[in-house]
């Protein structure tokens, strides 16, 4: 099946021009997802293995600085501590640059868009400066390797990743009757258990009870961040069986937790919740019920095989409905703009930090999407009305008028940019307006500010 090429680029990739080596058929797009993740290898981000020793070193000197009786010793420890934090911050920034660079260079834009979708579905944020690189590590260690396999594998990897355990307070949850819970008089924290049921799997209002949340929270006790990353600590796990949605999970090991996550992955509520979410993200805020049903039934019959679910999506005629009713979110807008301007990933990696923050990160925040800082664990909103606001458009138009001239010297011809970035999607109104701009700068800004460039 060979769909309309510009729809492929806008709806399931990061826009025109088509990347070199991009597949033009649905079969080709799906096959590309099975191939090795060359972009992750080309632009590596921070790993837990690299960050944990620095995090521990930071903890150690922080303790020294607090215990020091000698002011000079304390100050020296504080200097070292700040150095470790700066190292972690640099690693995290590397992850941010890598995410941008991959999206710019990827031959398979669909993989990059799916990575974004799942990173949003499993939103994490760094709770402190010490943990600033964790969300990027989760993207590379839990999400990208699992985005084309069974959902249960993706779920297991994300829920047990240190980024998630830290963000949703699982590290603070103790079985009240566990050895450590008893000794330290500590108890449950429901945060991760609740979001796991509400956001990551079944969906709000799908019929689970407060008791299910509580039992799930008891079941999750024992998931901790150890010296070498995630591990299961039996001494914190609530003893005895827990019953979630009528199923009993027994044993103070990781196995029943994994079993529960696997069962949640296969539930029809989970299938319907995430099938709909995929359709809303890629196609329309009010997706065709037949399209959602096709994905849901594929999910249920395969037990949540994501490759099969994507196949159902891309094979459905409604996925290719011609009207572009979604708005590009700011990150999507930014990547599509940089691609249309011909900025390669290598340029982003080499850009000095000040310029990267000024030209990329600060404008994203202005457009309403500060980096890795969604409003909450439910991630970014989907509706165009949430993005195409007076504030958001002020930031988009301002960036569109200002940034191209700073990024590309000499700047491209506005008509050429219009053709490269929009192809057949350029409206008569835009074709009329672009040559009438008074300056090159305003002509380029007009192309990138146009509705057809900002919708997908």
């Amino acid at each position, binding site marked *: 099946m060979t769909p309309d090429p510009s729809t492929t680029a806008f709806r399931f990739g990061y826009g025109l021009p088509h990347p070199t080596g991009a597949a033009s058929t649905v079969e080709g797009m799906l096959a590309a997802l099975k191939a090795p993740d060359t972009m992750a290898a080309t632009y590596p981000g921070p790993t837990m293995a690299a960050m944990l020793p620095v995090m521990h070193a930071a903890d150690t000197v922080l303790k020294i600085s607090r215990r020091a009786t000698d002011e000079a010793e304390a100050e020296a420890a504080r200097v070292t501590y700040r150095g470790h934090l700066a190292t972690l911050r640099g690693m995290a920034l590397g992850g941010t640059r890598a995410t941008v660079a991959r999206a710019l260079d990827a031959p398979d834009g669909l993989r990059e868009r799916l990575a974004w979708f799942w990173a949003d579905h499993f939103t994490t944020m760094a709770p402190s400066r010490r943990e600033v690189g964790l969300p990027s590590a989760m993207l590379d260690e839990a999400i990208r390797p699992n985005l084309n396999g069974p959902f249960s594998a993706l779920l297991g990897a994300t829920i047990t990743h240190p980024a998630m355990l830290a963000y949703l307070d699982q590290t*603070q949850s103790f079985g009240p009757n566990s050895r450590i819970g008893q000794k330290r008089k500590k108890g449950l924290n429901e945060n991760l258990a609740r979001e796991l049921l509400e956001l990551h799997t079944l969906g709000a209002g799908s019929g689970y009870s407060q008791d299910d949340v509580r039992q799930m929270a008891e079941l999750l006790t024992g998931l901790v961040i150890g010296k070498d990353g995630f591990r299961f600590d039996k001494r914190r796990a609530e003893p005895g069986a827990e019953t979630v949605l009528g199923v009993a999970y027994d044993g103070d090991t990781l196995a029943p937790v994994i079993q529960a996550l696997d069962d949640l992955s296969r539930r029809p509520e989970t299938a319907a919740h995430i099938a709909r979410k995929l359709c809303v993200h890629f196609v329309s805020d009010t997706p065709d019920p037949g399209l959602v049903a096709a994905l849901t039934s594929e999910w249920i019959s395969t037990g949540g095989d994501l490759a099969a679910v994507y196949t159902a999506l891309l094979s459905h005629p409604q996925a290719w409905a011609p009207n572009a009713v979604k708005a590009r979110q700011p990150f999507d807008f930014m990547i599509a703009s940089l691609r249309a301007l011909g900025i390669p990933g290598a340029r982003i990696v080499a850009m000095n930090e000040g310029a990267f923050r000024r030209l990329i990160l600060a404008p994203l925040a202005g457009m309403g999407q500060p980096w890795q800082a969604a409003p909450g664990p439910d991630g970014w909103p989907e509706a165009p009305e949430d993005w*195409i606001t007076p504030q958001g458009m*002020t930031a988009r138009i301002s960036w569109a008028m200002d940034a191209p001239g700073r990024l590309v010297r000499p700047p491209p011809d506005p008509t050429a940019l219009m053709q490269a970035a929009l192809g057949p999607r350029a409206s008569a*109104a835009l074709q009329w307006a672009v040559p009438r701009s008074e300056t090159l700068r*305003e002509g380029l800004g*007009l192309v990138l500010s146009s509705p057809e460039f900002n919708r997908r």
Partner: protein
Amino acid sequence: MMPLNRRLFLRGLTAAACSGAAHPLLTTVTFAGSDGAAPLGDHRLVVVILRGAMDGLDLLRPAGDAHYVGYRPNLSASQGIDLNGYFALNPELDGLMPLWARGQLAFAHAVSTPYRDQRSHFDGQDILEAGTGLDVPDGAVRDGWLNRMLQAVPGLTADTAYAVGGEAMPLLRGPAPVSDWMPDLKLDLSAQSKLLLDHVYHDDPLFRDAATEAMVLSDGLDSARTGAGMAGAVSDNRLLADTDRLVDFAADRLSGATRIAAFSLSGWDTHKRQEGTIRPQMRRLERVVTRLSSGLGAQIWGKTVLLAMTEFGRTVRENGSQGTDHGTGGALLMAGGALKGGRVMGLWPGLSEGDLYQGRDLMPTSDVRAWAAWAMRGMYGFDRAVLEGSVFPGLSMGDDPGFLA
């Protein structure tokens, strides 16, 4: 999807005042003494949404309840400020005590929306801002209650109501004209660029209206008063500085033609080490009230009611990490010179085991919407039928609590 009507209406608004945008369920009411210039009279209503579930039991501590310290050994450690011999105010809000003494601060305890049992922030906020009960099917109501109030008012202009700040404010979303803006934002465009953008946005109402509003507001700000001179310098603390700018902008608008302003303060989801994590939020809340009061000046503050509400309360007991989890009943903070305050209102349900909701949460004894409805009725004279039928469909307002001066 449904077109976002607000944007369509705004198009007509940029030139002149819009005629009343009638909601199908609404009968438009006429305001005594109102004219085209000030359709809502002199009163100002400010609604602050506290996102993340503010712990009402930590804002307004039931120090006189025998069970309180047992449930909250860590959170009760710091000394609250006694209000009435039973309830104590969180000590971070000590700057509000002069207002309390003047009757310009009040609380309603054990309030909630009709939302129950699922304890999801996102659904809880949706219901709080839609202002509906649970009998309304998901997605059936697409506008917010503050917008439905505006739909009952003829002669509004885009200046009448403002959503301030970067976050979406669904409670103001809907067909009635509303402006969105944040401080320190300006769109600089040449005259020719404006014309060309108008042209390319012409057939896409969403883009057209957002951009038009951005251009109109950017131009309007040039001539706006410098504003908030009375409130003093912006804080050095970053969180407070952001709050200051937000409040100063709101105060500036409210000093002119604006009668309604809404914004949100996030960061109330205090699952762990609450004493530390809630402190900066309590300070911000205090700052919002004190700075708005000084920014507006005595005369306008005297016509103002601020309502700070949240999606639900938090568990009565501390959790395993010196925080609290999602609960049900919470507290509403009211401030303003139009209040007859200095009181803690609402029916206190008690904290003994049998009094708790599901054995874990503060039992809600009144609907947070009823307090907002009484504020609207007292300030603007809406009929009960409009408030109970259209603004908050299905609400029973009960008896007049009489909290307006």
